[in-house]
């Protein structure tokens, strides 16, 4: 099976055939990868080089940790990609963004109002948890759609605090 794998601004074509042989951009590699007991760690030996690799997956993105470096990787199989006729890369930002509380806490401040245009990186909400005030930033530019919480609210884990839509382009 052929995969198009995107990491940073690079794209690799990785082919895994029925015999288990693996090529990267057409070049055969010799790799052995075994999973550990704690399920997010793998021991990888690639052409004699040994690495421990941590892998977490969420929303279709693999977050890979290796020797203290962190990579975000998106894997698409070629057929699906062709059928979907996708032109944009998988990282392109469209649709609604939901800002959830990653843990229980108290909302300190809502820095935006509904309908407001925000730039990527603008602080939208501040949540106090684990004795710290944590700032949540807009992951991309857009328009604040719904604000569901107010300053002083106690929130549970995964409470939706606000949403951002494509804004002007909608």
């Amino acid at each position, binding site marked *: *099976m052929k*995969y198009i*794998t995107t*990491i*940073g601004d*690079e794209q*690799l074509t*990785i082919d*895994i055939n029925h*015999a*288990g*042989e*693996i090529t*990267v951009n057409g070049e055969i*590699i*010799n*790799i*052995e*990868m*075994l*999973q*550990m*007991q*704690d*399920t*997010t760690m793998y021991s*990888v030996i690639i052409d004699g*080089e040994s*690495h*421990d*690799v*941590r*892998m977490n997956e969420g929303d279709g993105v*693999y977050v*890979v*940790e*290796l*020797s*203290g*470096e*962190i*990579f975000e*990787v998106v*894997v698409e*199989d070629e057929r699906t990609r062709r059928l979907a006729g996708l032109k944009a890369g998988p990282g392109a930002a469209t649709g609604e963004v939901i800002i959830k509380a*990653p*843990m*229980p*806490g108290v909302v*300190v401040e809502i820095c935006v109002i509904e309908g407001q245009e925000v730039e990527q990186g603008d602080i939208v909400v501040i949540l*106090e*948890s*684990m*004795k*710290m*005030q*944590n*700032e949540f*930033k807009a992951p991309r530019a857009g328009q604040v759609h719904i604000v569901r919480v107010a300053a002083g609210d106690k929130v549970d*884990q995964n409470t939706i605090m606000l949403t951002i839509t494509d804004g002007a382009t909608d």
Partner: protein
Amino acid sequence: MPMLKKILVANRGEIAVRIVRACQELGYDAVAVYSEADRMAPHVRMAQQAYPIGPSQATESYLRGDKIIDVAKKSGADGIHPGYGFLAENADFAEAVMDAGLAWIGPPPIAIRLMGDKVVARETMAAAGVPLVPGTDENLTDDELLAAAEQMGYPVLVKAAAGGGGKGMRNVYRPEDLTEAIRTARREAKASFGDDRVYLEKFIENARHIEIQILGDEYGNVIHLGERECSIQRRHQKLIEEAPSPVVDEALRQKMGAIAVEAAKAVNYHSAGTMEFVLDKDKNFYFLEMNTRLQVEHPVTEMVTGVDIVKEMLRIASGRKLRYEQSDIQVKGWSIECRILAEDPRTNFMPSIGRIIGLTTPTGPGVRVDSGIYFGFEITPYYDSMMAKLIVLGETRGEAVLRMRRALEEFRITGVTTIVPLHSQLMNSARFQAGAIDTMFLERHFKFNQKSNPEHTRIAAVAATLVAHQRKQQAILLHQGGASPWRLYGRREALDRRLR
């Protein structure tokens, strides 16, 4: 003062574990207290006795001095060690402990009180001849603060009068940002300390955070254990500490040490304490504040001096004379500590919670871990995010950095996100390796995940692709064959298939 035999540890996490260990190694019993969230915490399991003191919120448990003193009496403890944070710098609690006929394993309440109010502390230190950073009083209006800032010149630092741990602290570079900074600092100070008084200090650029550890007994003997450098900070909270400092030579060490000892004597200090200074690029130093308690970063000093600070605190509280004179204290080797936080370095240090489902702790020569977690423990949102401290000792700073790098590589925590990768990248930073650090290092001179090894990029891509491929195959084949604890890929898989 009676000999101590049973110590109540009024804390949780790694520092409670640290104190329980010291008690056990002195042959004392340790009594743990715990909130509902902490029934399975390591300090509870390791202590000889353990008593619940209330709900998970610290205000209902670890900050409830009354309940803690009740447990001390019920359990037959004869002393209380407060650790750091919670009640450690609460002079009223220290007095209540002593009023209950228990030993307070810390400094005299009057010293805590004098140093607890940052502005009073500055006045006390100035009177003792200690150089200060220019600063204001804490009872000024916002307008008066603005005028004072204009006078001392930007940048300035807004600080909470009751502060500590970076709470209610803001750097301000331009006059137009000051009003907003004062507002948010007051808000944070109010929330953290119930006291919204703030004051201004001149912010010294390219400065290092250097502190002097002191130790004194009840008979007026005070010594210092050299300096620690704590310039690697984020949000004014220390992330990495080391001893000695790359820029402090023996002459400067003795000079700063002598001043710290004099200052401690001026307030009749005993037990362990720390004088914090900023050191500018011309090696002028200015008093910042005194921490009247054990500090998070005390292990680096223990590693290079061989003095066990926690055991000394227990001995001093038993009424013993200090076992060391100043001339006994030699700094040997180099120690670095990395704080292991449950936070995500990719998302501006967002805290992380969850159960530890995999844990490998680094060990081997020259490595010490002071930890508050274990396999199966759950990180809850109720307390701060520090899970453990990784401390190394090397012959030289170079060896310590290499040793820290390998120890970080060995530290495997699964179940929560940690800042271990940030520390690894810092150890690989040429600027950190050269010791060219200051308190703005993380913000100005370091970028997380800046560049990567192209070979690592390729491996990460292939590894993710293999996992995606395997999931796809599993989805198609469902549970074909028995589940094996290890899954194999690539060449070996191919070989296995041919052999079948």
